[in-house]
């Protein structure tokens, strides 16, 4: 996509939403805190949602069990970080990173591996059958959630932030929590990596071509099947990473967290246009900002505001902000 035919209207929604709430919140410092919190939450949701929207856009599989990988990633992180108390307890940032990076990597590996099994045993028999996909991946979600309870127990487990990421930087009167900045940076990195892979690499080219015309690419000798399984595994791994980030954001994990986050993700990918990475980013940022602003202004309406947002976007663009062609 060249810069000229970039559809900028949805992009403008994010700053518009942020600016429109400034007079409502009143104090600029509170507004800044809320905005950063919203962007951070949005970035984490984006990391999770990007995998799901890719899997849907490319493989035409809607995975209602995506939430399992989120919870799995978060629980793996509690185990890894729990065993590295020396490193997380230190107040030096580099030592914390030494603890958090392996936790993220292991979580992504485990979630990816489970994703491979999930694709093989749950999703593969029902390609092309949407009804059964919804049912069977829902069943997979139940099984996964229960297995997590078997391994880690059904109770809530604390997942404290490493010492160096706790606390906030002060910008004037506004307190900007350090971890939120970290989350924004990680989210941006994931988005850049995804966009670059899809637009600039050969794998990305093949994936895009495979979506357009699968038979044609296969007749050229590429194995689209394998490529798509890779996409599924990558999507699961991203959900695992998102789970770690989300768990650290909430500072605790419960086995049901996947199902809870699932709803937010669905809203995000519907807003974004099913299958669109850029749309998912905008959707996630809108949802994150909206949740934080309404959480401050009218706490009771937090979940409603997101549904209202989704309805409003769908009235404007029924296929989501960036509709994916030929769907």
């Amino acid at each position, binding site marked *: 996509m060249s810069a000229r035919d970039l559809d900028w209207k949805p992009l403008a929604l994010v700053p518009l939403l942020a600016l429109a709430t400034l007079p409502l919140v009143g104090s600029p410092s509170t507004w800044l805190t809320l905005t950063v919190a919203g962007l951070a939450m949005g970035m984490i949701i984006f990391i999770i949602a990007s995998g799901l929207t890719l899997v849907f856009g490319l493989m035409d599989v809607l995975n209602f069990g995506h939430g399992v990988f989120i919870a799995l990633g978060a629980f793996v992180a509690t185990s890894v970080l729990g065993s590295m108390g020396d490193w997380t307890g230190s107040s030096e940032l580099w030592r914390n990173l030494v603890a958090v990076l392996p936790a993220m990597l292991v979580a992504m590996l485990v979630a990816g591996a489970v994703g491979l099994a999930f694709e093989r045993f749950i999703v593969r028999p029902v390609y092309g059958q949407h009804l059964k996909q919804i049912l069977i991946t829902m069943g997979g979600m*139940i099984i996964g959630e229960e297995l997590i309870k078997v391994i880690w127990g059904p109770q809530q487990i604390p997942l404290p932030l490493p010492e160096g990421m706790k606390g906030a930087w002060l910008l004037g009167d506004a307190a900007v929590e350090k971890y939120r900045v970290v989350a924004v940076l990680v989210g941006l990195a994931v988005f850049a990596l995804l966009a670059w892979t899809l637009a600039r690499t050969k794998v990305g080219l093949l994936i895009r071509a495979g979506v357009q015309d699968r038979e044609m690419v296969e007749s050229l000798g590429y194995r689209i099947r394998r490529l798509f399984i890779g996409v599924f595994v990558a999507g699961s791994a991203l959900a695992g990473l998102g789970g770690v980030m989300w768990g650290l954001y909430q500072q605790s994990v419960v086995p049901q967290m996947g199902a809870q986050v699932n709803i937010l993700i669905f809203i995000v990918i519907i807003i974004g246009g099913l299958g669109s990475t850029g749309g998912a980013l905008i959707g996630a940022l809108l949802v994150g900002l909206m949740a934080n602003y309404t959480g401050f202004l009218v706490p009771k309406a937090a979940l409603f505001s997101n549904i209202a947002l989704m309805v409003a976007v769908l009235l404007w663009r029924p296929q989501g902000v960036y509709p994916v062609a030929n769907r």
Partner: protein
Amino acid sequence: MMNRILSGDRPGSRVLAVLLLAIFFGLALAPFLFPGIKALNVAAKVLVFVVLVASFDLLLGYTGIVSFAHTMFFGIGAYGIAIATTRLGPTWGALAVGTLGALLLSLLLSLAVGLFSLRVRAIFFAMITLAVAAAFQTLASQLSDFTGGEDGLTFRMPALLSPSFEPFEDDFLGVTVDGRLISYYLLFAAATLLVLALLRIVNSPFGRVLQAIRENEFRAEAIGYRVVVYRTLSSVISALFATLAGCMLAVWLRYNGPDTSLSFEIMMDVLLIVVIGGMGTIYGAAIGAVLFLVAQSYLQDLLRIGSEATSGLPWLAALLSPDRWLLWLGLLFVLSVYYFPTGVVGRLRAARARPPA
């Protein structure tokens, strides 16, 4: 005559017919056959779930729409009775107001959700209903002045239906005739009527159009049926029946809270029952509900035995813990979608159809 009552939809298999008769008479005579309060509670729950699941099957099995907002309408029915009787006192008028109010709310809500989202693809609808249902559940627990919040509402029924009502001094066939027994038979009559009504609907020309839409939306539209209109109607009717099932639940329990009627677990139970019983048959709802609700209590006892027997192997014991019964149901669910896609009823009918007699 029988054919008329069943709207021409015969069981189509001798085994199935026997099973259905057994369920019907088992439920009709439950207070006399299975003594004890717990057994009667299970029987009443079966009655409520038969209606709830059959109404969901109209949507999932007949029209091919996946909705996750079905418990929302179930909850509206239960809250309708709960709120009306708490505000207006335990009178028949309150029951009527609660039921009608709930039906009206369900009608409007299902119409809004339907018109707004049934134009889009099935997957969109599933996700949107999931979000709407979650929002409704939050609303129900937050409007605590109205709904009692997380604690829910405990309320009383009109004298005739309350447990303290005992018109006769002597027992009848060894069973005390009291308000609970009368409530049970009220539920039984309601369930029978509602299931027969659903049978009537799915076997009418309207029901055939729904099936046509399920099989091939494009062709149905091409023949001249407005697919959106039929889908919306199907979801509205299904929502109304679910609301009535919710009213039945509230009349029986005399309590309602978010976990009793709105929780996502109930939605999962409904999905499981539909798939196990057989999608696209109202009879499947009855068979599935009985199997599932009996298994639900039985499985937990069985798992407890298994867990105690394997206590030497902590891993296996954890897997067999009674709290993990959902794990086994989940596996059963996935396996039934895999190997048993037509459910019990579909299997029985297929077994009958295969050898030409």
